[in-house]
């Protein structure tokens, strides 16, 4: 900002507004970005164990030659109050930083990252995109980040899986859009005789899931591969098909046929479990909705009524729903592939 501008701003009495905007809007955003990066890069986790000097952190990140640049970034963290510099070492300072540093909080930091990387751009660009006729595409989202971030809802989805999954007989599961594979793992743990096919549309997501399966010792029971549900050519061998957090990856007009396709892979009497955020939920969900309304591959979040109707239209019987998060629009829907000759 040059002098002139400054003078103009002062003259136009915009300074107080600017100052308060910085404090109320910008700083929190900076903090969010800093914390997300600190979490993702492992800096938070490292500092949670013990305070570290610059060299240690630089070495940990594999950037020994760029220690000075790293210092610049870390010092911003100190300015933001999330880190402290003391005794030649950085340490965690703010409550938020300490909380995010605890093991098992990765989904929260991933959610933060999702907000910054996907929610902010769409909020920022929506009008422009409409003017330019531009849409978001699958490559505009980092599948691995999304996979991690959807784990905020993990306990709720897990609850739905627990309720739906039969445990006392051999079972075959198809998970569509498996993400990192958490729910397949859960299902395999709940039912030791379960075998599964886990697919994801995105190569790198499927690859990560496959790696996870191997680490979890499930590679024998779970086959993981890149595939699109719409073109998946397998026999109707599944007792359960699950779609978690991805019905909005399909355009509205495709959803019935997608569900019908899922039904065609089910054994007679087999079931579909679908979990999803729906319209009218918290602000985050509405932004998610915004994102998918501006994407070239998906569609808006459904309403729960729409979903029930779509399942019914796709031929499912005994469709039931269940609100998974009290007070919010996050639901599970179950439908049965009725055997021939039965309602």
């Amino acid at each position, binding site marked *: 900002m040059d002098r002139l501008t400054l003078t103009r701003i002062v003259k136009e009495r915009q300074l107080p507004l600017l100052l308060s905007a910085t404090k109320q809007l910008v700083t929190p955003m900076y903090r969010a970005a800093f914390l997300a990066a600190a979490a993702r890069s492992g800096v938070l986790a490292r500092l949670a164990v013990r305070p570290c000097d610059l060299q240690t952190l630089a070495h940990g990140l594999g950037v020994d030659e760029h220690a000075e640049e790293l210092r610049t970034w870390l010092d911003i963290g100190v300015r933001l109050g999330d880190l402290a510099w003391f005794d030649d070492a950085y340490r965690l300072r703010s409550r938020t930083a300490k909380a995010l540093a605890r093991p098992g909080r990765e989904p929260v930091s991933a959610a933060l990252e999702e907000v910054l990387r996907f929610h902010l751009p769409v909020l920022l660009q929506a009008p422009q995109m409409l003017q330019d006729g531009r849409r978001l595409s699958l490559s505009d989202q980092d599948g691995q980040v999304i996979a991690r971030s959807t784990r905020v809802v993990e306990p709720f989805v897990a609850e739905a899986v627990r309720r739906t999954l039969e445990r*006392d*007989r*051999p*079972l*075959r599961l198809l998970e569509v859009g498996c993400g990192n594979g958490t729910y397949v793992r859960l299902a395999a743990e709940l039912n030791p*005789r379960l*075998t599964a096919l886990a697919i994801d549309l995105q190569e790198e997501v499927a690859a990560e899931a496959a790696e996870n399966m191997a680490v979890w010792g499930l590679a024998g029971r779970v*086959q993981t591969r890149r595939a699109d549900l719409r073109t998946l050519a*397998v*026999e*109707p*061998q599944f*007792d359960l098909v699950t779609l978690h957090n991805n019905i909005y990856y399909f355009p509205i007009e495709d959803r019935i046929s997608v569900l019908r396709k899922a039904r065609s892979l089910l*054994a*007679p*009497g*087999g079931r579909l479990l679908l979990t999803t955020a729906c319209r009218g939920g918290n602000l985050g969900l509405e932004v998610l909705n915004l994102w998918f309304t501006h994407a070239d591959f998906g569609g808006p979040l459904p309403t729960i009524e729409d979903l029930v109707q779509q399942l019914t239209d796709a031929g499912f019987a005994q469709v039931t729903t269940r609100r998974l998060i009290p007070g919010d629009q996050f639901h599970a829907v179950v439908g049965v592939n009725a*055997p021939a000759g039965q309602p």
Partner: protein
Amino acid sequence: MDTTTVDERDSTVIRLDRVDKPDDQVLGGKAARLAELTAAGLPIPPAFCISTAVFRQALEHLGIGTDEAGGEPGSELRRRVLDGTLPAAITEPILAAYAEMGRPRVAVRSSAVREDSAGQSFAGQHDTILDVHGDEAVIDAVKECWASLWSDRAQVYRDGPEPAGAIAVIVQEMIHADVSGVLFTTDPVSPRPHQMVVEACWGLGEGLVSGKVPSDWFLVDERTMSPVEQEIRYKVTKCAPLESGAIGIAKVDEADRNLPCLTRDQLEELAKLAVSVRTHYEAEQDLEWVLKDQRFHLLQARPITTRPQRTSRNRLYVTEQPRPIAEGTLWSRMDIGEIFTGIMSPLGQSFARYYQGNVHTDCARAVGVLDPGDPALHMGYLQGHVYLNISFTSYMLGQCPPTRDQRHFTARFASEEADLSDYRNPFGAYPGGSQGRRALTHWVRCTAVEMAQMKRRAKQMVASREYEFDRARALDLTRLSRRELDAEMARYLGYFHDMHVGYMPYYINAFGFYGVLAELCPKWLGKDGQNLQNRVKTDMSSLRTVESARDIWVLAQAAKDRPAVMRLIRETPLDALPAALRADDAGREFWNRRVEPFLRANGTRSHQEMELTHPRWIDDPSYVFQMIRRYAEDGFSIDEILGRSRAYQDGDAAAVLTRLPRAKRTVVEKVIAMYVQCSELRETARMSMITSIWLVRNVVYEVGRRLIAAGVLRSPDEVAYLDFADVLGYLAGTDEPQAVFSKVRLEEARREFQYVRRLPEPPLTLIGEHDPARAVVPAPDGARLEGLAASPGRVVGRARVVEDLVWQADEFQAGEILVTRFTDASWTPLFAIAGGVVTDIGSMLSHSSIVAREFNVPSVVNTKQATRRITTGDLVMVDGDAGVVEVVEG
């Protein structure tokens, strides 16, 4: 054409009786042997041989290099040989030789240079084409033999990359044999000095090797040239040219079924022939022979490589046991679930082993046993038969109060073959003290839980059965990847486990409650009590098994109501019937509306269901259609028959109870109710258990199909020789099938099975070990047979011996006395129209006995000899009260 010397360059087509120096390189092994035998004056059917030189010429003409093994794929070379046109220079000498023979019907057989040590026969067999007639057909058959050098099968097991070798072809007069068979100058599996083994069947020999048709078995002492042992089977089927011209299975005339295929004189003649072959080669021989118009012909001779006898042959335990245990254990295959009864193929046995290792101990736990012990102790194997270790089982069941006293359990297995007077359980009694108390507490808890949940579990078992059935029907296994198929197998085995474990408590509890009833009734009510007890046993009108007869009857009525459909059912050959029905409008309607639901309810039944090679009704509905034909013709109402038992039950059976004081009466009523309930639940659960086996079978046969495609197996018949553990290993891995299924082991399984199949049946119950050589029970003389009285009543009727349910179901006349080796649930529809039932094997609690009682059909079981002593058409008296069968008029 007069070729008197064999020289690679100029000899091409040689009459076998004109070969000078038989050379394997020129004639191939088989033809060289036949030439030698012809020269030795032995009766070989006229034949000529097309030498390997001709084969090479033909390849040269077709542009195929002889060392082409690695280069082009086998299928391509095969196609080029089959489709190629041969020049006159090659065909003319062949056709001239054929003309010289008089253009008869011939068998065209390949004679490879490098096959034919006896041990290689399994994979090395190249093709034989039977009943070829006419010039063109002969040339085609020759090409087919040549092409067989590159058959998948020949390729799969060829070791290393060396060239496929050369092949000669034999064109031999076709003998339309009256009797065919094999002779081993010494038993290849279990040699005994001076004794030759002869196996013989009616018709052509094709069915014998694959075990498709029944055969007689003789042990001939070569010093006296007379049989020292023989096993004459009731032979319903033979291999013969059918009307269509093809060779297939046909029925044997009724008069011949009981007769030995060979007379004593014929056996002697055959044995002499064998001795001269052996003398000629100075080696033990494996001969194929045929008998036509009283004359013997030899078709093939191969040296036998006898292998050292397996020491474990007489031992039943699967693991090494201390001597007192090995020699003192009581074994039985009576009442161990009819799904096991009878001989089992290597596949069936290995599946039983799977059951033993993975399911049986959980079944024991399910009936409240705290400590089921080592799975290896529970079951044993002898000559292809599966046995339950009665000693260990009764020791183990000592943990449960109802079976604490071993004698009850053990006594049931006593028979004249096994004298139990000196028997003492080598495992002793289950310890009392704190260990015993813990076991008892456990049993009490389990039993309480079982009583509370048994109805619900039966419901779940029915629901899961229908679910699994529908799911399996919608799946096309041929389209699954190996990995998916593996997951399918794991699923079905899991289901198999659960259904067996779910079934067992019903079985044991029905048994237990019946035991209580049998104790209380006579004690409290004397003779009337016994009556009551018998009637209760009969009161099981809703047995699922009996329902299957009703269901077939209903199906038969539905067919009768559709004359066009009924005509199709009557007039179409059985194997073409399902397709014929579905191709016809009315037929399709009948199939979809009637047959499909029937199959859903009953289709996974078969006989001896643990034997995976037996097709289920749904896989081969022949038997069902045979019964439909029968039921539709007879014009009787099945309700009359089913009703017999119910009318009976309404009588005054329950009246005796009023004589009892209130408290005792309540007890008896309660016990009766529990017994009936457990029996019903058992029948319901049984269907789920049976269905689980069908599911496993489907995967095994899909693996079999893939193995045939890969050239590892030749035909679906050979699935019988697979080891179930190998099937699982194959599915779980990615190895080439030929690496998993070893040729040597397949061949060994085949030989072993052929060997045990012709041994006399081992006893139902035995102690310790078993020596088949000592085991032959001479058939007692006289017209009187004693057995167990399984279902009361006396009846006189014409006997019909039924060996082959599917082939004979349509011969059976209502009211006849059914005489057979053993029966199981799949025979039920026949029981419904039988006047009486007599079996060789069985006990009071066999399924067949229960069903006979249900239909009120007098029955005597466990006669040991009935099928050998009674002939179809004999007038016999069955006394189901005394357990006696008499031939009134032979």
